[in-house]
Structure formats: structure tokens, C-alpha cells
């Protein structure tokens, strides 16, 4: 299981990425999709997903659609045109960042002595 601290800055991008691949998704569906794709290593809490969804909606990146589901209302989230371009930018930024982190993690032990001198 991955630490939520590690995911803190990436959640927005993860949600945008998922929504860029689906026409529309609801909160529970997003949580389950993240869990499934990460083989259960990332189990997002309700308190992490919904605030970000509402923030993205407030920023104009997402739009909502309310659908009656039996006795309740289900809110589907989907990307707006602005959200689509934001998603593209964020995904590129995160991919680049992960590449840099990967480079840092791939340091060979012998090279570290160069920096210690």
C-alpha cells in the first residue's frame, strides 16, 4: 500500500487522467478505478477524492450531471474543454516529474561519493 503523503500532489492529475479516458465518472467509481488499476496499492479515502473533485469543478475543469438513481441523486463528473487542456498539461508535467524522480532513484551507490567530497 502506498503512503497517501506520496500521492498528495498527484491526485488532481490522477483524477484528470481518469476522466480524460472516460466520458463521465462518479466519485465511488473513481475510487474503485484507482484501486483496481493500482492493484489495490492505492486506496483513496473519501476525504481525499471529493474535495479535489469539488475544487476542480469550482475551477471550471469539471462539469457535473445529476442523474436520479432510485431514491438518490448521483453526480457524474466530466471534463470541460478547459479541463481537457488542463489534463493534458498536468499529465505531461507529472510524467516529466516521475521521470526525474526515477533518475534520482536510479543513482549508482559509487557516484554518491562524488557529492560527498
Amino acid at each position, binding site marked *: 500500500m502506498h503512503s497517501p503523503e506520496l500521492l498528495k500532489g498527484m491526485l488532481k492529475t490522477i483524477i484528470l487522467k481518469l476522466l480524460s479516458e472516460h466520458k463521465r465518472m462518479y466519485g465511488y467509481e473513481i475510487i474503485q478505478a484507482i484501486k483496481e488499476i493500482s492493484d489495490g496499492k492505492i486506496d483513496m479515502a*473519501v476525504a481525499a477524492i471529493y474535495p479535489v473533485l*469539488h475544487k476542480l469543478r469550482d475551477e471550471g475543469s469539471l462539469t457535473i450531471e445529476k442523474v436520479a438513481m432510485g431514491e438518490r441523486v448521483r453526480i457524474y463528473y466530466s471534463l470541460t474543454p478547459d479541463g481537457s487542456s488542463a489534463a493534458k498539461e498536468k499529465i505531461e508535467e507529472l510524467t516529466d516529474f516521475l521521470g526525474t524522480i526515477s533518475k534520482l532513484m536510479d543513482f549508482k551507490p559509487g557516484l554518491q561519493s562524488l557529492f560527498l567530497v
Partner: protein
Amino acid sequence: MIYLNKEQTDIIRREVQRQGIKLPGLEEDLVDFLCTAVENELLHEPDFNKAFQQVLNTLTPNELKMTQERTQELLNNKLSSLQIVAYTALALLGFGFVLTMFAMPFATPIILGATALLVVLYFYSNIRWYFTFDNKSWKQKLVFSAGLFVVFLLLLGFIFKLNHFKGADLMMVSSLGILIFLPVFFSIYFFIKQGNTQIKFILPIIQRHRTSLELILIFMLVLGFIARFLLINSLGNMLIIISLFCLSILFTSYTWPYYKPDNKKSLQVLLLFMSIACYVSLLVAALFKIMHWPLPLGRWSDVYCLLLALLTFVWYSRQLIIHKTVRYFLLFICTCLLSGYALLLFLGMSQHQAVAGIIYNIPVLILLTAILLFFYKHTLFKALAVFLFGYYVLAYPYLLMPNKSVIEKVYQYNPEFVELYNQTYENPGNTAQWKQLLEYPHKARNF
């Protein structure tokens, strides 16, 4: 796939409401989340209660409430375009008042334009909020429409009053009268009936605008006192009255979330009494001042209602305002105004001297800030507190000595003339007094 029936959905909805979720949209999201989770759980566990309990066990304690807090934090982080327009209108309002003080042209159109913009924004934001809020019953629609109408009448009355148009008094008396009695009824209703659905409807309007409201009120109150200091009494009074009026609503709203069925204690009866007393006394004072009627308890009624408001705020501010600095700042402002005003009344100063006295009271305010800052955990604040305290101790003897001269310096008018001026404005129908005032020799007006 199993779908939950109405009864089961209602149980889940009540649980979400019980945990204090009031944010529009989020409540629906969380109800749907729990319902979907329970529906999936029912595939393995046919008993609804057990399945619901198992879903609740997967959440951390207070997770739903935490979700709401985080959502509010994130949403309040940036200035929306609506807020930018509101702050621009406020800046224009401030600019208009500055122009008025220096008797420069275009002051009135700027003030009226900015006020009109604020009124439009108020209606727009409330209507926008209202249409994002679902499951509206006819009762809620009625309350919403009535509320909007009353506030509209009040604001229109203020604009009419400022311009001395006919019909202003009627509008002010009717709208303020409704506003005095309606929340009293609501407060008692919440307390007796535990009207959770009504709280869900009314509170979000105030909560959504609380931060902006506090800023606006402080801004208006400060402007009001500046106007009083510059002896622009009508403008100062109007600003002070409007800010006091809004404060009364804000203070009353602090107490509403506490009227819950599982939380009713004898202390709450006191709180209920206090909030109602605070609200009524502030609004009655505002109404009497606007209509130039003599106040029932004189100026001590101001102190009484402000004291009630302050006590209510102190009691419950910890739970309601997360940021300590904001809490201290608001508390500081309230304490300063109240202590200054009470001190001046105690010393028996006149209305105009009161403004000068507040300036004299500044060292006391500095001391209060120092004490408050000292309890703030940051070292920098402690250092600042020590500095301010040192300054106060050193400056006190000097500040105490020129008490009378400071007051006289600011208050340069002849007391006899001021008395005549006050009496004329208190009884505007007395033509002989008006004549006497207008013919009062200019040279004799000052010391």
C-alpha cells in the same frame, strides 16, 4: 445489482446529515457513495444494517466531516471572479466615502453605483447558490423568496434613506420589523423542533459568505468610525448601523448549529436567550437610530447588545473559526470597541467626545493585542507581544496625562453648539431650532 429502497436511502441520508454535512453537492455525493458501497456489500451480506455498519467501519472516524472541512478549505483558497467584483465594489465604496469626506465631486454616483453593484452581487450569488441546491420543497422556495424580498426592501430603503427619498422610512420599518421577528421565530423553532432540514437550508447561505461578510463588516465599521471621527455623523452612523445590523445576524448564526437533539443542555437555553437578545437589541437599536427615535435604554443599550454579541462569539468561536489569528483579530476588534465605548460612557462623555475617547483608548487596545499575541504559539508573535507590552508600559504615563487635551484637540467644537446640533437632528420637525442652528455664528462654533 441491488438498489436500496427509500427507507434504506433515508437511513443513510440521515447518517450523513447527523455527521454535519451541509455543503450543497457534497451531501449528495456522500449519500451516493455510501449507498453504492452498501449496495456492493449487500451482494455478500444480505442484512442491510450489517452491510451499512461494515461500510461505515471502512471509513475513519469523522471522515465525512473531514471531507467537508477539506472541501471548504480548498474552495475558500482562491478568489472567485464574484469575490473579485465584490472587493472592487468595496474599494469603490471606500473611494466614494473618501471623496465625500473631502467634499469632492462624483462621490454620490460612485457610492450609489458601488452599493447597487453589491446588491446585485448579493442576489446573484444567492440565486446561483439556490439553483445548485436540489430537493427544494415549496416551503423552502417560499422562505427563500420572502427572505430575498425582505433584504431587497431593506437595501432599497437604505439607498432611499441616504438620498432622502420619500418612502424610505416605510421600507426600513417594515423590512427591519420582519427581520427582527423572523429569526427569533426560527431560533425558537430550531431549538424546540430540532429543525435540521431548515438549518440545512438557511445556514449554508451564511456559511458560504461568512469570511467575506466578516471582512466587509470590519471594513464598514472602521469606515464608520473614521466618518464619526471626521464629524460626518450621518454617514458614520449609517455605516455603524449597517455593520451592527449584519453583525447581529452573524452572531445569531453562530449559535444555530448547536441546536441539535443530542446536544440540548441547560447551557443551550442560555445561549438561545443570548443570541435572541443580542439579535433583537442590535436590530432594535439600529431601527431606533435610523428612525431618530429615542433609544429605550439610552446608549447603554449599545454596550449591552455588543456585550452579548461578544460573549456569544467568545464562547463558540473556537469551534466555528478554524484560523486562530482570524479569531483573535475579530475578538480583538470586538473587545476594543466595546471596552472603549463602555469606558467613555462610564466617564460620562458626550457623543462626539466618544470618538476622541476611542483614540485615547488605543493604548488599552495595544495592551490587549499584546496579551492575545502572547498566547499565540509562534515565537515571532511572542517577541512582538513583548515589544508591544514594553511600548505600552513606557507610553502609558504620557498617554494618561494628556487625556483631556487629546479629547479637546479632536473635539474642537463648542459644546453648546454641539448640543444644539444634536437636539436639532433628534427633533427634525422643530423649525425654530433649525433656524437657531443655521444662524449660529460661525466663529462661536469652535472653541
